[in-house]
């Protein structure tokens, strides 16, 4: 298959007080060209660690990331091998990711100069990229503080585009922005995907935007993917109780004063993950053996993958409404 990214059994570990914490615990994912894959889950579930590990900013504890057939190695002081330059990342905080003391133009041109372009041409391309993200070439000689949050995020996108990326990992790119800037930045990403056929992994906790722009959605809980499928499958017929809980917690702006459903408890400390299914202490549909058996991702008849004992391999989705908890 023609995959941009192939992620196999990826794990990320941190050390705290001499103990190992597995922030990402064995994730398999693929990303195709022209595809937007939404990655959702509560904070602390490992979304950002996974994103950083994919581009090589975070060291892998196990597993492998392949980008267009090349293995992604952790970033070291010597910089990035040329074959990985087309894999880029955008961060949540556009205030932190742009150098406040350097002109915007210089920062965008950096990537082009490293790639071997002459200086003059690099600035010319930078101007074109700034046009493309809707800022205009006048931004070249200005500094970060002269722009709003939404504009800075577009600058960050222009800088990522300087590497003519084939894949972009966008880690909460719109969470720090105003509603109107959110729409503009997400529309920009969508138009770039449609124009250049890039693949994007869109990490966000805002499920309604993810639903709008993603082709597929992966739901993460405590370091593991619990369900992955097309947007339509995930949204309209969730097959994992956690997916359903996330969706029913979104308040609807329909004027009907319906309270959203809450999911009691917090994401557990990844230092001490619950035995069996990691979601079982919070699961409203917990079954007899959920605290012992670790559910594996299995493919259902409709092609999605889910890790829950309720669902059976190669079968239709069992509607969660028909299930009773223990």
């Amino acid at each position, binding site marked *: 298959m023609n995959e941009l990214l192939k992620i196999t059994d990826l794990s990320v570990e941190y050390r705290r007080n001499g103990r190992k914490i597995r922030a990402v615990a064995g994730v398999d994912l693929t990303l195709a060209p022209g595809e937007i894959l939404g990655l959702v889950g*509560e904070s602390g579930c490992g979304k950002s660690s996974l994103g950083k590990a994919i581009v090589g900013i975070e060291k892998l504890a196990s597993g492998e990331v392949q980008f267009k057939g090349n293995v992604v190695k952790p970033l070291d002081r010597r910089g990035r091998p040329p074959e990985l330059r087309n894999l880029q990342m955008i961060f949540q905080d556009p205030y932190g990711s742009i150098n406040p003391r350097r002109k915007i133009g210089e920062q965008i041109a950096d990537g082009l100069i490293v790639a071997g372009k002459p200086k003059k041409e690099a600035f010319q391309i930078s101007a074109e990229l700034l046009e493309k993200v809707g800022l205009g070439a006048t931004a070249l000689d200005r500094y970060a503080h002269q722009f709003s949050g939404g504009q800075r995020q577009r600058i960050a996108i222009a800088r990522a585009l300087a590497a003519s990326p084939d894949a972009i990992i966008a880690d909460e790119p719109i969470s720090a922005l105003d509603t*109107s800037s959110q729409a503009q930045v997400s529309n920009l990403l969508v138009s770039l995907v449609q124009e250049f056929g890039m693949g994007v992994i869109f990490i966000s906790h805002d499920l309604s935007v993810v*639903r709008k722009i993603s082709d597929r959605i992966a739901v993460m809980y405590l370091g593991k993917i619990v369900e992955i499928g097309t947007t339509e499958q995930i949204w309209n017929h969730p097959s994992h109780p956690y997916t359903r809980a*996330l969706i029913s917690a979104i*308040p609807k702006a329909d*004027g009907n*004063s319906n309270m*959203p459903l*809450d999911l009691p408890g*917090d994401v557990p400390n990844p230092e001490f993950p619950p035995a069996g299914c990691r979601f079982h202490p919070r699961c409203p549909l917990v079954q007899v053996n959920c605290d012992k058996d670790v559910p594996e991702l299995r493919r259902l008849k409709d092609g999605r993958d889910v890790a829950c004992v309720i669902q059976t391999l190669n079968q239709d989705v069992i509607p969660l409404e028909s299930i009773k908890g223990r």
Partner: protein
Amino acid sequence: MTLLNVENLSVTLATSSGSAQAVRNLAFNLDIGEILGIAGESGSGKTMTALGLMRLLPHKGFATGSILFDGKNLLAESNKAYRDIRGNQISMIFQDPMTSLHPMIKIETQLTEHIRHHKKISQEAAHIRALELLNTVKIPDPASALEAMPKQFSGGMRQRIAIAVALACDPKLLIADEPTTALDVTVQAGILRLLDQLRREKNLAVMVITHDLGVLSSLTDRIMIMYAGSEVESGLTSDILKNPRHPYTKGLISALPTSDLSGKTLKTIEGMPPELGKIPSGCAFHPRCSYSRDPCALEIPQAVQISAKHRIFCPVNPLVNS
């Protein structure tokens, strides 16, 4: 019964290029046990309205007009007299609970100090009250929570503790400025349910400031939409969300990702809200408004009453009569 009556409220702030009005001629009221939502983009004056009420405006900022709370004009009270009202009869919670919680002081001290500042009760009585409060906001194991530091709690639990501090003196009015914006949806749902329960059980009046129309829909009785420091539309929550009349409100609603599921492009309102001190003449929204006509740039729109509780500040006929 009316608890809060705001008339002609304006807030003026000092900026590097002179003074600028962040809130302009605002009028609204709030009943006991009612939840009012204030919505609008950032820079629309939502937070400055709340800070004006709390008398916590930034340096050199001041409020004019009248704020009648429980019969007293808050703007006429001395600073000393107001200190007995703030935190006692009117409390506020913020987007980041660490704004109001001290990171280095244990929860018990933060709660009891506050209670004993306003009420002459013993340390033991304050301790019991603190346990009660943590129970009200559904913190598991309140006794050991009292001994803990704020950093030992998750974001959602910290917001619950901030709510407990705000409730410590049984206020009549709680102002919540983006109380759930920084939280996960699952945790947000819990906080919304808690606020609704407090209103029902304690008859607490709540003023919620948020840009999230979903939050407003589930929690509030009435909504006021603000733009560039002024009200553009207000009414019952269901009227505003199901039958918006002002072009700005309509724009906000159609920009929701859930409003139109076809395609991947989100709708936006063209242009940006005006900066502080650069508010357009006439109707502040006219440069971005698709219904704009010549008089819109000249005349400040007056309130048009749609029904008893629903009004818009827009004289353009097709919207009024639709």
